């Protein structure tokens, strides 16, 4: 495949200095990775290995300590690029706004016309299974529903690059599979590049074109697995024997790393 490079991370590393002491936490990298335009890329890795940090670097929310991040050929360096949508790991709904206003937030700021906005929001509400909750407030919804509001809020902006940080973390397994199907459908329709962080190996195996496996902190890419799925796919591929092989391979790479990060946590406490 010689698809166009959409996002490029070159030797990207990130360290955090603690406010009260002089010691530095090396959180990530160095990472070298190229995301192809229009691909679905998933990242799995042990907790605390720097996945969210990597996402924030690509989104321009934080700048790299070393190396460079490029989006559509231009360096990001801590600026927020246009055309990038982010769904965060935490609940990012605005509690003082209705679900409709939450989803409409970015569209309103972009000064789109009212009819177009209403249309996009209505479709997102229907697609995310939030019909009947448009005028509710986030506190009236379950955690999984709120996460879907955040996904909808990002998708209505039609970003060219979608960054998702464990967006289905608060969902049950069945809803998770169905949301995966919706995400695949949306990805095919929009042609956007998707970067998905997940802790569910089966989710990565089912959704992605390629899966990056990260080491324990400081996170590096241990392995990048091509799944070779056809573009037209859905959750039924879990019955494919290759699905089992991919999941098994992911687990082989991750088992040792996860034990390392658990051990490190145990030793430091």
């Amino acid at each position, binding site marked *: 495949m010689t698809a166009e490079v959409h996002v490029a991370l070159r030797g990207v590393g990130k360290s955090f200095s603690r406010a009260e002491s002089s010691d530095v936490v090396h959180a990530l990298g160095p990472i070298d990775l190229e995301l192809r335009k229009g691909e679905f890329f998933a990242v799995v890795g042990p907790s605390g290995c720097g996945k969210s940090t990597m996402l*924030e670097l690509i989104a321009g929310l934080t700048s790299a300590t070393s190396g460079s991040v490029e989006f559509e050929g231009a360096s990001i360096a801590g600026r927020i690029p246009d055309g990038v949508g982010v769904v*965060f790991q935490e609940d990012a709904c605005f509690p*003082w706004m209705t679900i409709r206003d939450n989803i409409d937030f970015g569209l309103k700021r972009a000064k789109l016309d009212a009819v177009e906005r209403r249309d996009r929001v209505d479709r997102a509400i229907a697609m995310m299974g939030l019909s009947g909750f448009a005028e509710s407030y986030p506190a009236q919804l379950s955690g999984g529903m709120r996460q879907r509001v955040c996904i909808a809020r990002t998708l209505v902006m039609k970003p060219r690059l979608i960054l998702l940080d464990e967006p289905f973390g608060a969902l049950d397994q069945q809803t998770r599979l169905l949301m995966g199907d919706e995400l695949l459908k949306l990805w095919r329709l929009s042609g956007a590049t998707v970067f998905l962080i997940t802790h569910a190996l089966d989710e990565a195996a089912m959704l992605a074109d390629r899966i990056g496996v990260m080491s324990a902190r400081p996170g590096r890419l241990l392995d990048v697995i091509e799944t070779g799925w056809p573009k037209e796919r859905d959750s039924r591929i879990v019955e494919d024997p290759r699905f089992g092989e991919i999941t098994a391979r992911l687990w082989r790479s991750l088992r040792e790393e996860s034990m390392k990060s658990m051990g490190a946590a145990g030793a430091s406490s």
Partner: protein
Amino acid sequence: MTRAGLWRIALVTGFAGAIEVLCLTGTIDKITMQAPHRMLVDLAKMIASGSMNAAIAKTLTNAVLAFLPAIAVGILTAVALFPFKRVRNVLDPLFATYYAIPVFAFYPLLIVMLGLGDAPQILLGFMLAVVAVIINTLNGLDRVPRVLIKTARVNRMGPLATAFGVMLPSAAPYVLTGVKLAVAYSLIGIIGAEFIMSRGGMGYEISFAYNNFDNAIMYPLILLILVVSIGVNTLLGLWEKRLMLRKSGR
């Protein structure tokens, strides 16, 4: 009405009833205090005759002139200070000890500087109120979830849009606490200042009536002040409740 609410009403009526009985039986003599029912009658007469209208208008106008700027200046100061960690490290302890200072001690100085008009009274009310708004707004801003600020950044919002579009709405319950305190403090400041030295207003009239043993004016005025401040606070409380109902989703 909730059970607690009924108990509260019972408590207040019981207290008023007890004073009523003590006054009627002469345990509390007439020169010390009037029976509560007389206060109500006198208050009704006072309002009907309009004899105190000027004083009431002056005090309430000055209170509004103190607390509206206190709210605006307080919120803007907090928003401006919030990003500067070092400045806040210096100022936060000062804000915390601010209410240990008896601001009234500066009243004579304010009169010397501003003259014996309404200005020193309004300034005193403002000074008492503004810091409560600053402290509570900063407290609320400190608690805005980081992910909401990140969401604003991803939406390419500037610092001003973020402050007014995301951070202040998120901090609204805390800001409202500051606003409620500001209402009470500005009234205290104005009436206290009128009491000490002024040429009019409810505080002045109470003090004047007190010096002339005129209970038929003093007690109804005290009652009126209670009614006004409790009334304003109840209104703000109802508004707050509506905001909170939304947030907690019931």
